[in-house]
């Protein structure tokens, strides 16, 4: 069964003409064989693909599925596997590492950042409208906004924002070479370690200051503090940027629903949840390995076998979401989406992501009521083969 030629290859390619819908292969598998094998690395691995919403939650919420990519059966994208950080550990190690950061994303702490997010949004939109049309909405708004918010969060001094921006831009640049992005990482890592040292002497009200204090107490090292800062940049920059760009495309393609994003606080919050469900940017699938035999929905997954949970497919499950391929900014159960994952690894930064989207999306349409995409939809360059879905650029007029 595992090496049968009938096993379809795992793919990130979206259907022609429907770039925000999942591959029809997955839609069909969800209806006919909701837990079935797919092949990775030209058949060298054949993990299970779990496509229903309920089964996806059952896998992601079960500690019998490990995120550690060093398991031999782990369905990682390359034989080497991904970069480290606590995402790739199971509890109790994951829990201890995660708790060095949990207080930083508390709802009340993120609420303190809201005025800064609103100010940065305003400044960037003002700068954008001073450019000649058409201008690239990704380069001039969607990418710099989250990077500047991370500067605020980490406590990067204003005079260093240019340096920080310039290097974070290279890291997420679709066209950068491996060497260019490695150099940008090295510069930022060195910068963050220096920032930890500065914060020991001159503390502020920011994440790096509090991580430096944890280092003073001996719980972590200065290097750990710098690495956690880099991790936050990695986790919060491109994801939020793509979510802003794809949400903007989605809203422009559903102009009748734009009034919802301009509504009251509660209406905007609900609209953002539906956009998170509909867009589901992390389309590379969440990866797990069973550490014991588990039966889900009648299918037994054996210890050592890999599992891929494509959350963008589960978020379009018609058994749970009525008319799932329709955007409905008033959908009652939108909040039950799996866009941030589910289980103990669910996105730590979700309160920040929500705050950014709730502030940014209404402001875009309030400030730029004539916003239009300057090319036909089928000429937009979608990132078809990256773990986080998005667009390379988005030329707009306003």
């Amino acid at each position, binding site marked *: 069964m595992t090496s049968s030629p009938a096993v379809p290859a795992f793919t990130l390619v979206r259907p022609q003409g429907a770039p925000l819908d999942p591959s029809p292969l997955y839609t069909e598998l969800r209806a006919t064989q909701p837990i079935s094998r797919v092949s990775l690395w030209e058949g060298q691995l054949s993990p299970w693909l779990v496509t229903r919403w309920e089964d996806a939650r059952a896998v992601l919420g079960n500690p019998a599925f490990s995120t550690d990519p060093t398991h031999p059966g782990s369905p990682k994208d390359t034989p080497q596997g991904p970069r480290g950080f606590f995402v790739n550990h199971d509890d109790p190690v994951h829990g201890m590492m995660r708790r060095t950061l949990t207080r930083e994303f508390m*709802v009340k702490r*993120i609420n303190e950042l809201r005025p800064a997010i609103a100010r940065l949004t305003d400044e960037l939109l003002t700068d954008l409208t001073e450019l000649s049309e058409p201008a690239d909405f990704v380069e001039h708004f969607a990418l710099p906004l989250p990077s500047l918010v991370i500067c605020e969060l980490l406590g990067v001094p204003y005079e260093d924002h240019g340096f920080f921006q310039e290097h974070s831009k290279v890291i997420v640049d679709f066209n950068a070479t491996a060497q260019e992005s490695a150099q940008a990482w090295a510069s930022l890592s060195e910068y963050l370690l220096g920032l930890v040292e500065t914060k020991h002497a001159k503390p502020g009200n920011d994440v790096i200051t509090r991580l430096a204090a944890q280092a003073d107490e001996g719980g972590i090292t200065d290097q750990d503090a710098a690495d956690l800062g880099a991790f936050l940049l990695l986790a919060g920059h491109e994801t939020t940027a793509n979510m802003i760009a794809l949400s903007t495309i989605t809203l422009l393609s559903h102009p009748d629903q734009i009034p919802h994003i301009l509504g009251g606080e509660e209406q905007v*919050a609900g609209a953002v949840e539906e956009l998170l469900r509909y867009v589901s940017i992390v389309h590379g699938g969440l990866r797990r390995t069973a550490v014991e035999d588990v039966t889900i929905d009648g299918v037994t997954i054996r210890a050592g076998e890999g599992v891929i949970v494509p959350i963008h497919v589960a978020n379009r499950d018609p058994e749970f979401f009525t008319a799932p391929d329709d955007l409905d900014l008033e959908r009652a159960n939108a*909040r039950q989406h799996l866009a*941030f994952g589910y289980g*103990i690894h669910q996105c730590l930064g*979700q309160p920040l992501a929500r705050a950014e989207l709730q502030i940014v999306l209404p402001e875009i349409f309030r400030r730029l009521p004539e916003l239009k995409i300057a090319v036909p939809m089928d000429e937009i360059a979608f990132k078809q083969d990256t773990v986080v879905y998005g667009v390379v650029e988005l030329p707009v007029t306003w």
Partner: protein
Amino acid sequence: MRVEVDVPRCVASGQCVLLAPDVFDQRDEDGLVVLLNENPPAELHDAVRESATVCPAAAIRLGES
């Protein structure tokens, strides 16, 4: 309705605080859940039920009477 929280399970996603801020809070030192009201009034029951459903760590338990 009686609400119980399992603090060691909590992963500080903050969703319960967004949905039912009169029932759930987060402690300052690590963002883990604090139960403000174990017998919330009827008008908050829907928000509390939704909090329990979306909690990624299944750390909220409800006793419905």
